[in-house]
């Protein structure tokens, strides 16, 4: 039997004529990355829930009230927010293929992100050196896992940013580098979104 096509009398109710807008590489990859990001949301939600269950289990040790500083977390919040915005401004430059502006804005986003990590590492080191590491209590265990996972995501993002910016520096803005910037910026904005919940539920509620 001939197997080349299956054309025959079309059914008026069949909707086979609408092209799927997601069949090009750009849309497919963006959707694929978005799906990954959604699974990352579930991971963070689980870590938040774990923290919610365990945050009062201090095992006789210090509680969040004793350990968290509003000043540091406010600074971290502002830095990350600014980083997210400069990333967005970088995307606007990418839309216009302004290579130097892209490198400029994303460079600032990188420095801000690196400052965030520096502050967070300082905070963590201080806690660990005082004996309040993740082995101290269930509260600290869940704290370090939640905030540490977020910090790990930011650190990987910084490395990823370097790789993409190197490509932009060497090649400029073409369809591939543009797509990679789009996907990276989704990741970066997402991390700031998660941080909103960290500073609210961990730091703000922690000092109450």
């Amino acid at each position, binding site marked *: 039997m001939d197997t080349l096509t299956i054309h025959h009398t079309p059914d008026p109710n069949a909707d086979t004529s609408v092209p799927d*807008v*997601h*069949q*090009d*590489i*750009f*849309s*497919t990859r*963006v*959707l694929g990355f*978005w*799906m990954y990001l*959604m*699974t990352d*949301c*579930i991971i963070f*939600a*689980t870590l*938040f*829930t774990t923290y*919610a*269950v365990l945050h*009062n*289990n*201090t*095992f*006789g040790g210090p509680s969040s009230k004793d350990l968290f500083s*509003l000043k540091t977390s*406010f600074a971290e*919040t*502002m830095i990350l*927010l600014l980083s*997210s*915005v400069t990333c*967005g*401004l970088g*995307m*606007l430059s990418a*839309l216009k*293929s302004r290579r130097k502006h892209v490198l400029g804005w994303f460079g600032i986003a990188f420095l801000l992100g690196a400052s965030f990590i520096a502050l967070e590492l300082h905070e963590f080191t201080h806690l660990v050196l005082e004996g309040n590491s993740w082995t101290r*209590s*269930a509260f600290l265990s869940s704290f370090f896992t939640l905030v540490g996972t977020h910090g790990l995501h930011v650190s990987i993002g910084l490395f990823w940013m370097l790789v993409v910016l190197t490509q932009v520096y060497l090649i400029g*803005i073409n*369809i591939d580098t*543009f*797509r990679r910037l*789009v996907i990276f910026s*989704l990741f970066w*904005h997402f991390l*700031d*979104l998660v941080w*909103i*919940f960290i*500073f*609210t*539920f961990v730091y*703000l*509620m922690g*000092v*109450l």
Partner: protein
Amino acid sequence: MHEHLSLKEARKEWHGTLKAYIIGFITSIILTALSFLLVAAEILSGRTLVITIVGLALTQAIVQLLFFLHVGQEAKPRWETLVFLFMVLILLIIALGTLWIMYDLKDRLMMDMPT
């Protein structure tokens, strides 16, 4: 079959505008500052305070979802939005379900010793 998009066509898929980023940025700053202020200056307290800052966090999350991540602004069929809503459903089931179960266990098993 996979098709190539030109850079020009790909740009049309991107939904960011300067206005959106500025609105998102200013609103986020205001909401963040408000949250920290309410806690630091002890303006509200107790349950009112908790509900307010959670509300502020959810508001800022929606602002960032709309103005930075452009959720809901893609062309039809809106796969990204569908996947996002499904994620929210699963998230609520896992988070609320876990809290219900764990607090129920805590009540029944008298797990109120500090651990």
